[in-house]
């Protein structure tokens, strides 16, 4: 007996098989191994590693800075996407290509570059120093690095949605008497909101997982500028595989919960939308 209705499109069995196989081999299996590895240690040890002050400090920095970076990208990613979509200017294609640079660069290179510029004697750092602003080797530097490497996700998520906002809609609103701000709030924003949330989610996810660029600019002071991925590496270097796995499981858990929350928020938004219609 077949479990599914016959479909017009052939190849369902084959493609589902491949999907399951690849997801298992590449995503689920390693994750399961991670959980198993962590699960093989006693509860007390697990809690000891996971709730140590140093670990707690690193969570705060990792997730806090990532949220902050994603929020910054939400705003500025939107502005960049807007500029690229809405205006014709010389060099637009070049800027459009530059957006993807953080993708292509080895993250360590980004980290070194940022450190050079923002260190106390760097190009920008030396002017910030007298103002009492320290970027390199503080949480500010961490946020900066995370913002840089996750920016393309925000821009690229919003761009197609903005392209889809028809000029006609804005013009219609304009002839109906709406000002620029009103048009933005009531017409443009609602149309691109799902894309904005997606961009935020992607940015956040990318930032949480970032390691390479941060370690150069963070200074890596325990409790202050140490991110969780670095703590995991430190555990690994001490051959403490269990400890590393335990921290990994915690990151996995928190990330999963946050992504799920954002997805639920989006789904809820869509439902509100449809309910308003009936």
């Amino acid at each position, binding site marked *: 007996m077949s479990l599914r209705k016959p479909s017009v499109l052939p190849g369902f069995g084959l493609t589902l098989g491949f999907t399951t196989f690849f997801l298992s081999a590449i995503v689920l299996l390693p994750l399961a191994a991670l959980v198993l590895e962590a699960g093989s240690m006693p509860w007390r040890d697990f809690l000891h590693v996971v709730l140590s002050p140093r670990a707690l400090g690193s969570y705060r920095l990792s997730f806090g800075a990532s949220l902050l970076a994603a929020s910054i990208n939400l705003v500025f990613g939107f502005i960049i996407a807007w500029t690229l979509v809405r205006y014709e200017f010389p060099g637009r294609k070049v800027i459009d290509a530059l957006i993807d640079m953080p993708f292509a660069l080895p993250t360590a290179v980004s980290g070194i570059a940022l450190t050079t510029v923002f260190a106390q004697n760097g190009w920008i750092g030396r002017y910030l120093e007298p103002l009492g602003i320290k970027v390199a080797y503080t949480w500010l530097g961490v946020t900066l690095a995370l913002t840089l490497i996750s920016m393309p996700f925000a821009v690229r998520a919003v761009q197609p949605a903005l392209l889809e906002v028809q000029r006609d809609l804005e013009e219609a609103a304009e*002839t*109906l008497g709406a000002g620029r701000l009103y048009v933005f709030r*009531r017409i443009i924003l*609602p*149309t691109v909101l799902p894309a904005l949330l997606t961009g935020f989610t992607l940015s956040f996810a990318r930032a949480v997982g970032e390691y390479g660029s941060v370690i150069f600019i963070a200074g890596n002071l325990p409790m202050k500028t140490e991110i969780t991925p670095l703590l995991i590496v430190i555990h690994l270097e001490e051959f403490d595989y269990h400890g590393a796995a335990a921290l990994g499981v915690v990151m996995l858990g928190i990330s999963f919960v946050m992504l799920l929350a954002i997805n639920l928020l989006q789904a809820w938004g869509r439902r509100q*939308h449809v309910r308003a219609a009936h």
Partner: protein
Amino acid sequence: MSITLDQVTKHYGGMPVVNDVSLDIGDGEFFVLLGPSGSGKSTLLRAIAGLSSVDHGRIALHGRDVTHVAARKRGVGLVFQNYALFRHMTVADNIEFALRVRRMRAAKRRQRRKELLRLVALEGMDDRLPTQLSGGQQQRVAVARALAHKPEVLLLDEPFGALDAKIREELRRTIRQVQRELGITTVLVTHDQEEAFAMADRIGIMNLGRLLEMGAPHELYSRPATRFVATFLGAANLILALRTPDGIQVGGATLAAAERSADAREHEVVAVVRPEEIEVAPARGALTSGFLAHGVVDEAMFTGAVERLRVRLANDGAAAQLLAGNEDGVSAALQVTRSQYEQRAFTVHAGAQVAVGVRRLHVLPTPLSSFTCCATTEALAEALSHQPLLTELAARMKTRIALRSEPQLGLAQAPAGPEAFVGTTVIAAGEDCAVRAEWLLRRGAKDLLVLPARLAAPQRVLIHWLGEAARSATLGMSASVLRHVPAEAVYVGILPDDDDGSRRPPGMRELLDARSEAQAAHGLEIRTELRFGEVAEELARRLAESPAQMLIVGVTELTRFAERFRALLDAGQWPVFLVQRGPP
């Protein structure tokens, strides 16, 4: 007046998309802007709405100058071709949008919304999303939304373009009904002539950025002034004919014209014959209308209410006069449509021999009928006929270019060939050109176009006449040329250099007269300039100021013509149109 446009001009990349359009639309009038795509009609509508700025001219709504007022403060309602409904809002929110912007109270908003939904026959649809409605319903919502804030003017930009035929008809009726009920001034933009006929109080026809003609639908159809309007509004046969004191002569036949002409001289004209005004009969004697020629039916097609025939004329003289119609432009066959009644009276099949009669014939007032390239040899004339500006003009005018060789062209005392000069004679610019021009003008060529071999497409046409007798002919010719060339028109008034000031007032008056006559008699908007000096020199100087200019000059008497115009014509840089009229 609800909407007043005064010399509205808009350029894109140097090309005028809306070219000097002046227009008055009355209170409660339903005005249709009709034209092919790219004619500038949508740009003009957007300019009225305030969504697109204008480079020159004024726009007033109900007497208030709104040229520089933002769209949201103009108080217009605009309906788009693709509806442009806010997809994330319900029908109710869409309709109330303009009211919310104006902070109207909820209860009043609801009341107004109910009113509008009743008006467009969509009661009870308040809570639907646009995606849950059919195309026709969405457009009704868009109309209701555009009317919510009680605009003074309703603008519709091809509102039926995306709908199928049946829905289109229904929506047309709804919009017309709503418009009558509210008495709101409405401008509709379309490329569909049937739609224009069905809805308009008045139609304005645009092409190449110019508003060519306006008038009531039946007037424009039966008495078009330009060949573009004649062929764009329905099908038309264009026939080159000779206006004689007896009537309109085509080939060997002479027909009566529907209207009289002010021009007494015998000259070539373009006649318009609608396909339904043509009669076919088995023999000449059976015709109830004026006989045109014998012919052979090329094709007979049944299309329901009417039958379409293509008739090839057998009489060579008449066939040669037939210009390619607007349908295919390949074979010059006469288009005929016949009613069921006519079909029953006389059944024809392809290949049948018939006699062709014309019931009604309309003569276009345009002085540009056909071109004849004239040179000392046939080969040179042939070469001249491929000049790009000339071929483009002829193609746009759907007219023909004939060749004529005059071996003795320009030789003093030598006579011209036996045939009379008809239409516009074209000669090449360059050496001896002024002498040749005078030679032709003295031997009966009235309209003469002097063309350089290579030139840029003219963006400005300068107009001048020497002598009042040539004034109206020059303006008429200018209007005709400008209908086919997207350029601006400038009348150049020239006063003698030694002027002590006493001739200035008449000079200024002449400028104003030129402008108002151009507008009143030909619907042509022109600008004016006043210069001082010797006429031919001053014109040459003005032409030299910028490239891509053309000159149309009216002349009356030919004394010392070649001498005076040698510098201007022999330079061979600018196209010059010479129009000679005046005492014989």
